[in-house]
């Protein structure tokens, strides 16, 4: 299919700065009520990330200035799903986040991406919510975590937008996001956490019935393995925080993996070192992760050198 190429080829990264309101009233008070975040540290970490993307990996970086009115706007991954030359502008679950899309939409247009709006795309998308942190794109197919923030309707819109690809749903519950527990670690590699200590509560799909059961993340992996027509290599990491990485095959054709540094996930670093010929880029993300975000939450990756098959 025209859009199908190995995962990881990107030319641009779109990020949005950390506002002063970082961590404050970012939504419901419960989420970060007890969490104390260090704004300066968060901004430093953000700077490290963007620096790595630009200087190490070699992407063109587009930074949208922070907007204090939008305390969560730095989680830019949520507001767009991009593949090929199509960008689906999502509809975040929280009402107050839905205005975040405007700036992103402008950038997408400037990148000459075909912008697909979730709102007006179809009448039946009423009530559809979709956030990018629930979407794992492997280069061959989409997995959508049906979570507290992403619903089935949203997944349908995604499926309708990217018709070439199979869109499989993986129920996730208890506040977890799909990208929190897995991410791409290579063109054919999915990084999974199998943290036994912190068992994720996943919503398990039992036929038409959904039961919330305490399950190992491995169940999620099993489901994904069952759902896919393809075979992926799985890199398991002992810590959940390590499961979210950013893999990029940069313009230099080298494999880059941005992962959490050793002090944030001491047990998992050795796993990353198994990856052959990778350039590992430890990138701290401790502050953002306090707010439920991960490395990949902070950027949108675009490939503008898309070549048809």
């Amino acid at each position: 299919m025209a859009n199908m190429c190995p995962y990881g080829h990107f030319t641009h990264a779109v990020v949005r700065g950390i506002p002063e309101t970082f961590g404050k009233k970012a939504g419901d008070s419960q989420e970060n009520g007890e969490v104390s975040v260090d704004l300066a540290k968060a901004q430093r970490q953000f700077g490290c990330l963007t620096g790595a993307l630009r200087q190490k990996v070699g992407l063109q970086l587009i930074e949208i200035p922070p907007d204090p009115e939008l305390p969560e706007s730095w989680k830019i991954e949520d507001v767009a799903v991009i593949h090929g030359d199509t960008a689906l502008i999502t509809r975040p679950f929280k009402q107050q986040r839905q205005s975040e899309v405007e700036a992103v939409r402008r950038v997408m247009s400037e990148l000459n991406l075909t912008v697909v709006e979730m709102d007006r795309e179809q009448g039946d998308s009423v009530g559809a919510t979709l956030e990018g942190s629930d979407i794992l794109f492997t280069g061959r197919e989409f997995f959508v975590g049906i979570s507290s923030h992403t619903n089935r309707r949203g997944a349908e819109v995604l499926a309708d937008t990217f018709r070439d690809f199979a869109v499989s749903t993986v129920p996730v519950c208890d506040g977890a996001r799909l990208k929190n527990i897995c991410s791409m670690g290579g063109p054919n590699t999915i990084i999974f956490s199998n943290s036994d200590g912190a068992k994720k509560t996943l919503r398990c799909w039992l036929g038409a019935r959904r039961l919330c059961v305490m399950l190992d993340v491995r169940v999620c992996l099993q489901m994904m393995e069952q759902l896919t027509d393809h075979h992926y290599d799985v890199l398991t990491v002992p810590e959940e925080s390590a499961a979210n990485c950013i893999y990029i095959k940069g313009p230099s054709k080298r494999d880059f993996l941005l992962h959490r540094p050793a002090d944030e996930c001491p047990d998992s670093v050795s796993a990353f070192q198994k990856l052959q010929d990778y350039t590992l880029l430890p990138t701290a993300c401790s502050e953002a992760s306090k707010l439920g975000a991960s490395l990949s939450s902070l950027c949108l990756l675009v490939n503008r050198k898309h070549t048809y098959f």
Partner: protein
Amino acid sequence: MTTEAGSETEVKEKAEESAAEPDQSEKATEDSQEVANAEVEEKEKAKVKEKEEKEGKGISRYLPTWLKKQKSQSQTSPTKEAPPTEEPVSKVTQEEEGPAPEVNGHAEEVEEKEEVKSEQVKEKEAETHSNASADTEPAKEEKVEESAEKSPEETKETAEGEGAEEETKEKEGAVEAEEEAGEGQTSIFQSPLRLVRKNKMKLVVCHVTLLDGTDFTCEVEKRAKGQYLFFKVCEHLNLLEKDYFGLAYQDNHDQKCWLDPTKEIKRQIRSNNWQFAFNVKFYPPDPSLLTEDITRYLLCLQLREDVASGRLPCSFVTHALLGSYTLQAEIGDYEPDQPRPLDFISQLTFAPNQNKEMEEKILELYKSHRGMTPAQADTQFLENAKKLSMYGVDLHHAKDSEGVDIMLGVCANGLLVYKDRLRINRFAWPKILKISYKRNNFYIKIRPGETEQFESTVGFKLQNHRAAKRLWKVCVENHSFFRLNAPEPPTKARFLTLGSKFRYSGRTQAQTRMASSLIDRPAPSFERTSSKRISRSLDGAPMISITEAGRESAENGREPHLELHSDSKSSLRVHGDNIYVRHSNLMLEDHDKTQEEVLKHQASISQLKRSFMEAPPPSPPQPNQWEKRLTSSPATIRLQQQQVVSVPQTEAATADNTISDTKEPAKTTEVEIEETVVVQEISRAPKPGLITVAASPPAAPSAEQEMREQEVKVQEEAVVVEEAKPRKEESISSESESEEEAEYHPYLPVSISHTQIPEEKEEEEEQEKQEEDKTAELQVLASDASSLPAEVIQPAEETSREVEESRKEDDTETEKTTNAEEEKEVERETEESTDDPMVTPDEAPNGLTLPEEGVTVMDAQAEEEEEPKMNGEPSLIEAEPLPQVICCSEPPVVKTEMVTISDTFAAQKTEIATKEVPIVHTETKTITYEAAQLDGNGDGEPGVLMTAQTITSESLCTTTTTHITKTLKGGLSETRIEKRIVITGDCDIDHDQALAQAIKEAKEQHPDMSVTRVVVHKETELAEED
């Protein structure tokens, strides 16, 4: 197939050939022989017919012999290329039987005449000639005369050929009606008269829409098999790698079906619409592995169609890219001089919602393909198309167990489950152990995962049984094609009763790759044109695409109506097909018969089922009360728990590990399956039917009703029916049985009781059944080795529990009455069976059963008389004594517990503690039926509850039907379990052993119960050749 080769054909040949050769004297002798051998010849004819059917030769009856000859030749031509493997066999058969060798000899003569033709072709000719002669059978004497005539006429043949054919067609019309009536059962079993009649060879014009949109017209014999037409089409297309393709037709319900190459066309299309579409049936996952460009080209045409129609959804960019490759392949390099390329492009259809923007994109990409050859462009097209997620996915509408609309997609890798556009589950072929369908339910049994202990079964509901069977067949074929090295042979030695024997008959992908690697011919030249494609319609085939749910739903809405019409008939029948997949191998548990045949075979079982299902739920409130009671008992609770568990299991394949049930999930699931079946049937069934039947027993309805009420019994009865059919063809026997049985409504309780949720009971019974199935399989295996002529073993258990108050006489009588129903069943079977009406003790093959039977004969008779009334079936009364054993605990026999609650009887009978598990189970989920039957009678007591379940499970060799009828009146309850085990086989079955095994199992299953009666009925059918 119309062509039936008889010895007579030889005569014709002789006549025809006589002109050229001097063999006439021989021929005359042959003729005389033929007359003598008439019967043998008939058999031959049947065989020959089959052969010919495959090859599709036929000559209309009325054709003059000279014309016939010509036609046969023309038809044989396609077969030359790839002679069916079956031909050699047919030769052998012919030779074996007297006249046949002569035929061959004639064939040789023909050879001499026509040097070019291969031997097979020659044979064919001979056969066809013979067919023609067969028409003349009645007056064989004339043949000689004809021969004389023929010789002069032959010269004309070539010239007149076509005109003559047309004439024949016209003639066909008149005769068709007759043929149709007779042909239904045709090929295998035919009375001599029929054979004679059928020998007419009619030609039918088939219209095949090719992938480029053109129409291919060809004539085939009316009884030609699908294979013949398919080969003709492939020949026309110059296609060698044909295994990826198939012929599709629209059935009466506008559903697209695949023409089964091994069956007669006429019997599949079921209408006079000889319209077909040549389509890709199996989308090769890697088209680059195809050997020839022409194959890829045809695949491209199919995919262009799929894409343009929306069946294969793809994104804007992909549409554009595929369109650009299409242009490159069909038009060649972009010509900058071309005045208005966009106008040209806009005339073509590339996408369902094509717009200017897309066309511009197509043009832009098209320009970039300069220099690409058509073959390269096709290859690129396929390389892109094959990656689409819906490539090669055959979608079917279904509902999951909660009634949610989903789509089931069958593809090379397995079965995909879609909700709207989202994939919610996927079952790879290696994960699937068994595929089955029952009525409109479709089931897959999933191999347990690493962390899972049990198999699980996932059930889906299709719109109707046809859809379920269609899906099942597609699954069978796809699995066989993509996963097996060689197709599984259709299971011949299986039961008559349940299921279809359908198997994929073609080559598998592995085989076709092997074959195509041997293709050694210069690449055939063919023309790529898009013009045809543009104008071509979609054949009216319903397109199913995920995005088009709305439209489909409309169709669905329409479907039910159709069902209602057909249901009256179809509901009677039980369709069950199972496939067992061992790792990558399928063990099929099905029977090939067409649905009709299956239906017929199962008549007895289906009757029971039907009666259950159709019975309208009597009075809603009472069931509830009943349930309350049931729930109070521990057993019930258990069952309910299971139910809860079971639901998720069936539905969810993935989360098996979460379920921790002490019980076996697999069984549970199966139980559920059964339930669903029952429920659906109930819903479908018109309520009034059964009731009326019960209410209007001609003889003495009131008396009967009283009988039941009065009686409180718990009986287990095992009725073992052995059907030994030496060579018999399943279809035939089944048909006869089914039809007759279908008419009967023997079991009142059955009809009345089935309202709703028979889950618990099913579980138990299912387990039992499973056990039985296993045994059955074992039996089958053993039987195969043995020399007995039974092909199929069908154990059918029918367990019915009835709780009735017995006001009347003796326990024995009451029991007998209950038994009487069973007896009726048996009787039906016997009646149906051609050979043996009833098996009296003497007749009973099994030594085990005889003694028991003898005991109760007298009573049984009395009961029987009454029973017909009870059932409301007047015709059933049979004076034949059925052997009954009451409360006998004999080793081979199943124990039956007799509990008589009725006051009068209670003292006399041994009361069995309510502990009987089966009863409770049954009640819990089985929908309690209040004694609606009794309504007509004054005695109808509010407290009487009856539950009945029919469970049918199929395994390779076993079919089990269990009927449990429970009646509660006041504090009294009777449970009667009727098990009906049908052992059917062509040959090599040790019936005694099988019977003993079955009884033993039944006994083991219900240790608390005693075997009351064992009735052995043996049917023997006349041997038929295949």
